[in-house]
């Protein structure tokens, strides 16, 4: 496996300032990366995505942003805000943190561990309920081609704690870039976390996210992952259709690994994507039932807006002994334009017999009869379609508990439907009820 020399040079510079012990640990991680490279599509978990070409591209560590970009359009009023720009905390020096542990391709994990800078380090004490949501903004502002950064968050909820966390990946238009992000979550007995992740990276980004969560006894994790479409269609990036093949394209890969580690754990994962602009969007959701009496639900909705490739792999593993598991997974996709490709793979891997597991996946178009029904009642066709699409995605959107954010997401997606839908907070709260 050959990696571009610039990785080594970047690491030398990065590690020079570190204490000796940490430097050694990171050097070991870097060596693993150097030996193993990045995953290619010959590996079953990477069946549709090949990162290997990126190992051969020149990179440089992203410098601190020159100024503070205007983030007002993305601010959320009632949240505690934490901003990272190019992997550096905006407000304060981040506390030192242990290297993240990942359950991923060894080379890729090695790269992340070697370079990771500390992101949000949060512990919610026993029986505390955070009264304000946390809003984490990770902004990528690349001025020169091949800038990279790697950010590691860690969230721990102690027994009975509760929190709402919004993690937003925001890419400002600019040069090509490469970033990785890890989110490790630990929920102790009876803890409850709702995590909303909004992916809004710029064109020309290669981004990998890994979220690993361990859900304890009677604890509950709710995840809503939204991959936003670009503001408008069009394809400003010249070159190959498949982003994986060309460094100029956009490649977003997100791995979600949720382990129901103790009896009574519950997880709900939902996802929504709008794909266009030749993006290569690969979402991998895995729920691992490692203990009995676990329950999990997964709801996914996808929209193929234009030339793009979206991959959705939903995997449920029921380990030996995880009896009385109850799991359900539903994937539905709408193909709205030529040139879109949606690859769905709902997987079940079951080693216990007293379980209830069902999954379903579909890919199709709007129901002509439903469109006709609305038209026959005087709704113009474009608006009828927009309404139906909105109701289709609302199954997932309604799970975003923060109403202002939900409205922002809904507007952003429906803006692409070509018919003005009059969405307001009031209609949305109605929809949520």
């Amino acid at each position, binding site marked *: 496996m050959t990696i571009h020399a610039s990785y080594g040079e970047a690491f030398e510079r990065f590690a020079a300032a570190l204490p000796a012990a940490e430097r050694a640990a990171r050097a070991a991680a870097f060596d693993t990366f150097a030996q193993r490279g990045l995953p290619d599509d010959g590996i079953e978990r990477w069946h549709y995505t090949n990162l290997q070409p990126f190992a051969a591209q020149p990179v440089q560590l992203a410098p601190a942003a020159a100024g503070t970009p205007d983030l007002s359009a993305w601010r959320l009023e009632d949240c505690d805000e934490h901003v990272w720009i190019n992997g550096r905390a905006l407000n304060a020096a981040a506390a030192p943190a242990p290297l993240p542990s990942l359950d991923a391709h060894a080379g890729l994990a090695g790269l992340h561990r070697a370079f990771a800078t500390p992101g949000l380090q949060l512990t919610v004490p026993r029986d505390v309920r955070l009264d304000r949501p946390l809003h984490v903004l990770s902004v990528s502002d690349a001025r020169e081609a091949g800038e990279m950064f790697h950010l590691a968050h860690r969230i721990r909820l102690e027994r009975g704690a509760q929190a709402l966390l919004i993690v937003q990946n925001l890419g400002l238009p600019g040069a090509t870039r490469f970033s990785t992000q890890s989110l490790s979550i630990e929920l102790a007995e009876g803890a409850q976390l709702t995590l909303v992740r909004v992916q809004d990276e710029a064109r020309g980004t290669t981004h990998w996210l890994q979220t690993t969560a361990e859900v304890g006894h009677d604890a509950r994790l709710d995840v809503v992952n939204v991959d936003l479409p670009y503001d408008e269609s069009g394809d400003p990036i010249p070159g190959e259709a498949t982003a994986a093949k060309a460094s100029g394209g956009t490649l977003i890969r997100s791995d979600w690994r949720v382990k129901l580690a103790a009896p009574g754990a519950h997880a709900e994962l939902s996802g929504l994507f709008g794909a266009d602009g030749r993006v290569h969007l690969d979402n991998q959701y895995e729920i691992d039932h490692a203990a009995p009496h676990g329950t999990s639900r997964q709801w996914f909705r996808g929209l193929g807006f234009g030339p793009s490739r979206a991959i959705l792999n939903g995997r449920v593993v029921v380990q030996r002994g995880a009896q009385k598991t109850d799991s359900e997974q539903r994937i539905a*996709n709408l*193909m709205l334009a030529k040139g879109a490709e949606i690859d769905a793979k709902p997987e*079940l891997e079951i080693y*216990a017999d*007293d379980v209830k597991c*069902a*999954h379903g*996946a*579909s890919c199709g178009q709007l129901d002509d009869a439903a469109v006709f029904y609305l038209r026959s009642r005087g709704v113009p066709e474009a608006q009828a379609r927009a309404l139906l699409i909105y109701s289709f995605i609302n199954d997932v959107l309604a799970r975003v508990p923060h109403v202002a954010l939900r409205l922002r997401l809904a507007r952003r997606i429906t803006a692409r439907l070509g018919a003005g839908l009059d969405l307001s907070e009031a209609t949305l709260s109605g929809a949520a009820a």
Partner: protein
Amino acid sequence: MDSDLMAANPSDIPVPAEGIEALVQNRKYAAGFVTDIESERIAPGLNEDVVRLISAKKQEPEWLLEFRLKAFRRWQSMREPHWAHVEHPRIDFQAITYWSAPKSMANQPKSLDEVDPKLLETYKKLGIPLKEQEILAGVQNVAVDVVFDSVSVATTFKQKLAEAGVIFCPISEAVREHPELVKKYLGSVVPFGDNYYAALNSAVFSDGSFVFVPKGVRCPMELSTYFRINERNTGQFERTLIICEDDAQVSYLEGCTAPQRDENQLHAAVVELVALDRAEIKYSTVQNWYPGDENGVGGIYNFVTKRGDCRGRASKISWTQVETGSAITWKYPSCILRGDDSVGEFYSVALTHHRQQADTGTKMIHVGRNTRSTIVSKGISAGRGQQAYRGLVRVLEKAEGARNHTRCDSLLIGDQCGAHTFPYTEVRNPTAIVEHEATTSKIADDQLFYCRARGIGEEDAVSMIVNGFCKDVFKELPMEFAVEAQKLLQVSLEGAVG
């Protein structure tokens, strides 16, 4: 017929889970005997000389040897695939004998009367009548080709089929008699370098069936091939090629058994189907290779590439399979729906018991407009069996109006087995509709209780429930096979009872 369990105290209801497991404990493999027959076999190992030797033994023309050598060279450059959800020790391809034939077949027998009686006895034991008189007497109306290790032993009903214009013969004979057809179609559906095991097969394939149904002919009877592995340490590399010209129709059945042995044997077949305009091919398999014993010792590695090409408009290819045997099954009968309005179907029942492993499913590649496909897969896993459905539905850019429906259900018997589902759906056309649904369940205590409360014995109840579970697939099988398949499932699940 009855076991201890049938005599169990009827008051002990509902049935404890161990009861069901006990039912599936002792399964007997009735086809596990060895025929003591003198064989001519070459030394184990594989190199270009072996490929040349096989070709020479079969007196093949130069172009076919070229095909084999190209495949062999490609195979050497390929990596063994590891993506399947199965585990097995490394296969030593140099320890396998690539050619074995009963000595009595050395001087090609001209008719059944000249065939070694021991061979005929083998097939009689397996319940396959070769004597045409017997068949004519109404035992069954099926033309049979039987393959013993590397050679075809006998093909029945040739005359009657020839009158209809149908060619049904061993593929080695077809190479001699109809070289233009074989040359045109061999490797046209599964190219010689398609995958690791297909490349190996293309290099060393032994025998198999060749079927050609000309324009407008509806094959007057079911065609059937029976495969038997007899020799120790041999691999069987069968190659089957079926061609249906415009408006032709054929139904083809395939069955397989092997002796009970402690070592693993490799079976790497390639089956190619070609359907031209409005042609229809129905391919049914009852696979009962030796599955190994309850500790996973022995058994066949069944690594098979089966693919049908709906080349013509409105053509149809339908695969039905009942997989109860083999230590490991790795098999994905597929349809390439190239012609507009063509139809692909896949119906499967797969059973894994003891330490059997199966990674099986299908591929439906929608190329033409308005192509339709249906997938129904039923997996039953018992003991320590591991069962995986792996299926691909791909709708290409031009496949306007393509439609697929997939249903796959798994039934778990016991808490040590596994049932897995890996469906891949890849849609590149916005007018396509693709649906997949799957469930996993076990035989519920209330179902058993219901049956037992009505006086139905425990094993009959299990058998009824399993049969009900598989009904959607069994109804697709030709009559004779449906009966055999049900019996096979019963034997597999009930142990000694037949």
